[in-house]
């Protein structure tokens, strides 16, 4: 028997070899091992139908072990089920498809689960787990022991071999001519016109380097499909898979509607034995990067290639499945609990969201921002909220009023069980982050990983009420918001009793003001009091030098809850809802607004803001001049918009429609959920698609429109300081013509 220690790179089912596991050994060797891993699924329903199913399964050409047993359903308790065990996990998807067709009236459990999740539940494995493996001469695993935990804060670094492949230009805009390759040893560029040589070098590199991870740019949607096509044309197959018997896995592109918007997911290419990650097709890559992707895979137990491409919702669902399997709870195909019938009065009282105040409009100083630490997940854990624990409405109302658990803490529900270790890990990371300098090598990594945790925790709350969630229940979803409202109102009462003025409340955050409170210590008594009253972890996000809450554009007397900006005492700028945060803001306007904010951030306090205004006016003048004189590169004027429908479904000739039409004519079609890049132009059409043509004429740019956008962005950050909208404008324009006489000549 051979024994190996190393990191688990990937695992997947194989029709002949059972389960295939790839191990990066401590000795540097990459080993392909296999394991016998039988999988069981269950069916429940009328006895006669279960007998029919038994006979049907006995007649299948596969070896299937059948038995009658009792398992626990999360909602209904012990249930008599038919258990069917297959030797090969790869046979299950096909068989289940047949069963769903022939027995639609039966309830199937554990039937569509990812094999990695099943393995995680049995052996506590996860991507990059440190493993000790005992395997025979045929590389069949007899024993596997995981040496670390997915909840460890600092995991040992994995010695990954990475090959980066990217085109020299954005393929959505112009046809790339070369591909750029980068490894630890160096980089090179390959000409795509010379397909044969490119393939030869790439093949050599794949064999020589034998990368564990191929990190691409547009690899799923453009690069790998192109290289695979080239391979076919030149009859020169490349060793993309490390597993010689493995096949390249393809997933189709799709658009779907979620969170009130159309979301597009490009096609996917998964490799066997090594990993392929396309940074442009990775969910939230812009937010948490590779560190976040690996953390997402680690805590969810999903294979890295899958974890990179699924939404956080699928991630949290995977975590719930692992908890259910570990506790021998049946995993249904989808949620089975319908909402309890309710009266109108009950709906009015229960069907509510979080508390959101209208902030007090204007500029404020001596303000502290206090945030509850992951409020909704913390509520679920502390008050034991889970689909199976939330019972009668009366009990929930009592529990909310007294801020106590809905059922005894000893019977911890499935959701709190899933979330508790994740919350604890996030808390440890966040606590360490507070003590780290930004220059510390761990800072970026910790920050990315906490961001990955954040998205999982945020979606966990939504999944309690989501129609496709496996473990959801509206009443649990409502109980969470009810606790949230109670907790926030208790925090508000605490602040007011201690003499603070509550400027704003926003679901899990609070902005409070008290003259003279300028340091964290000034807010400590309030934090302590809130902690005592609510029992939930709370932290001071920061103390502002000044913060401005903005009014609605349509009604200056009404505030917008999530539109504000401010500067903390440490100089850090925080913005929400203004142009810098919007995806459709052109880079030129975003940069101008950021520059103004940075100049304002240098003021020592609120009183010093007015002294910044002359310098800011000069900057605005420069920007206006650059725009009017056509000195702004067109790339900086690109507006990004998400396509919400197909071309034929547009009813009005909006700019996105014109640009989409132009793209279609250029043979580049986009699907709903994808982003279109456009530039506002003069005359008709009102916008041109940036990716439709390579020779964009800068003279066609609609300068007045961009000037208006600039004015609006400047107004948003200066109005709270000057007190009047456009107050800076007159002076800026005046200065413009006084000081740049050459402009008049032009």
């Amino acid at each position, binding site marked *: 028997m051979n024994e190996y220690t190393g990191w688990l790179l990937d695992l997947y089912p194989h029709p002949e070899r059972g389960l295939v596991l790839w191990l990066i050994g401590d000795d540097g060797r990459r080993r392909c091992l296999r394991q016998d891993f039988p999988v069981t699924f269950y069916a429940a329903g009328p006895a006669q139908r279960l007998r029919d199913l038994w006979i049907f399964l006995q007649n299948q050409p596969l070896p299937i072990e059948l038995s009658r047993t009792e398992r626990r359903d999360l909602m209904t308790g012990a249930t008599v089920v038919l258990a069917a065990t297959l030797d090969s996990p790869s046979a299950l998807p096909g068989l289940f498809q047949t069963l769903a067709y022939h027995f639609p009236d039966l309830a199937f459990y554990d039937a569509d689960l990812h094999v990695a999740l099943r393995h995680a539940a049995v052996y506590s494995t996860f991507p990059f787990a440190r493993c000790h493996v005992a395997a025979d001469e045929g590389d069949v695993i007899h024993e596997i022991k995981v040496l670390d935990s997915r909840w460890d804060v600092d995991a040992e670094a994995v010695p990954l071999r990475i090959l980066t492949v990217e085109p020299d230009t954005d393929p959505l805009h112009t046809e790339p001519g070369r591909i750029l390759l980068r490894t630890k040893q160096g980089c090179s560029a390959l000409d795509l016109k010379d397909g044969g040589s490119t393939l030869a070098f790439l093949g050599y590199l794949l064999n020589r380097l034998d990368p564990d991870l191929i990190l691409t740019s547009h690899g799923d949607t453009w690069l790998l499909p192109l290289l695979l096509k080239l391979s076919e044309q030149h009859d020169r197959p490349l060793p993309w898979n490390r597993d010689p018997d493995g096949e390249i896995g393809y997933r189709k592109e799709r658009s779907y509607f979620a969170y009130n918007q159309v979301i597009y997911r490009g096609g996917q290419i998964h490799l066997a034995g090594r990993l392929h990650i396309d940074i442009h097709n990775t969910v939230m890559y812009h937010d948490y990067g590779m560190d976040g992707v690996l953390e997402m895979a680690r805590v969810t137990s999903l294979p890295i290639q899958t974890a990179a491409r699924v939404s956080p919702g699928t991630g949290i669902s995977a975590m719930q499945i692992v908890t259910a399997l570990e506790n021998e709870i049946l995993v249904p195909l989808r949620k089975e609990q319908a909402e309890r019938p309710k009266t*109108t009065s009950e709906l009015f009282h229960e069907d509510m969201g979080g508390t959101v105040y*209208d902030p007090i409009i204007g500029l404020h100083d001596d303000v502290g921002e206090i945030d509850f630490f992951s409020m909704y997940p913390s509520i679920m854990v502390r008050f034991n909220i889970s689909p199976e624990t939330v019972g009668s409405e009366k009990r929930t109302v009592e529990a909310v009023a007294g801020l106590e658990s809905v059922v005894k803490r000893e019977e911890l529900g499935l959701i709190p069980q899933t979330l508790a270790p994740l919350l604890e890990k996030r808390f440890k990371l966040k606590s360490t982050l507070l003590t780290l300098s930004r220059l510390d090598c761990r800072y970026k990594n910790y920050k990315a990983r906490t961001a990955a945790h954040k998205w999982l925790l945020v979606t966990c709350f*939504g999944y309690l009420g*989501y129609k496709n969630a496996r473990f959801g229940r509206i009443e649990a979803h409502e109980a969470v*918001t009810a606790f949230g409202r109670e907790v926030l109102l208790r925090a508000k009462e605490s602040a007011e009793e201690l003499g603070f003025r509550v400027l704003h409340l926003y679901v899990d955050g609070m902005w409070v003001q008290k003259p003279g409170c300028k340091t964290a210590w000034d807010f400590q008594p309030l934090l302590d009091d809130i902690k005592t009253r609510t029992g939930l972890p709370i932290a001071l996000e920061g103390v502002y030098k000044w913060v401005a809450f903005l009014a609605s554009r349509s009604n200056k*007397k*009404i505030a917008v809850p999530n539109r504000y900006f401010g500067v903390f005492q440490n100089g850090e700028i925080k913005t929400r809802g203004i142009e810098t945060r919007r995806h459709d803001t052109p880079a030129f306007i975003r940069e101008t607004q950021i520059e103004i904010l940075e100049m304002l951030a240098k003021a020592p306090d609120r009183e010093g803001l007015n002294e910044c205004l002359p310098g800011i006016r000069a900057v605005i003048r420069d920007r206006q001049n650059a725009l009017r004189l056509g000195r702004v590169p067109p790339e900086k004027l690109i507006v990004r918009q998400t396509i919400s429908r197909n071309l034929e479904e547009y009813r009005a000739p909006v700019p996105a429609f014109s640009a989409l039409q132009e793209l279609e004519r250029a043979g580049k079609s986009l699907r709903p959920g994808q982003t279109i890049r456009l530039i506002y132009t003069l005359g008709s059409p009102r916008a041109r698609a940036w990716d439709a043509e390579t020779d964009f004429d800068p003279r066609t740019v609609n300068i007045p429109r961009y000037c208006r956008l600039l004015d609006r962005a400047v107004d948003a950050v200066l109005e709270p300081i000057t007190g009047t909208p456009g107050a800076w404008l007159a002076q800026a324009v005046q200065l413009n013509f006084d000081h740049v006489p050459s402009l008049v000549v032009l």
Partner: protein
Amino acid sequence: MGNVTPTITDILHAEEANLARFRRALRREDQVVLDDLFTAAYRHRAAAAYAGHLLPFETFLLAMQIEDHREVMHLREEIRALHEQLKQVKAGRP
């Protein structure tokens, strides 16, 4: 995801729309007053939502009253302060 009932902002918008004919028939100067009253109601949406009243318009009316009364209290305080100043000025005169 969860919610099936309209949000408090939707309800307030609907109430405002219901009164569109009433608003139209008002004099211009009164229209401004009505708009101001609705602005007052918008400011207390969080409290109105939390109340979960079956007839939310009653809560909106109360929100308008609150803003009105706050203004009255503020003006009272100003008048009191002015009276105080006036007294001092009078007392200071020979």
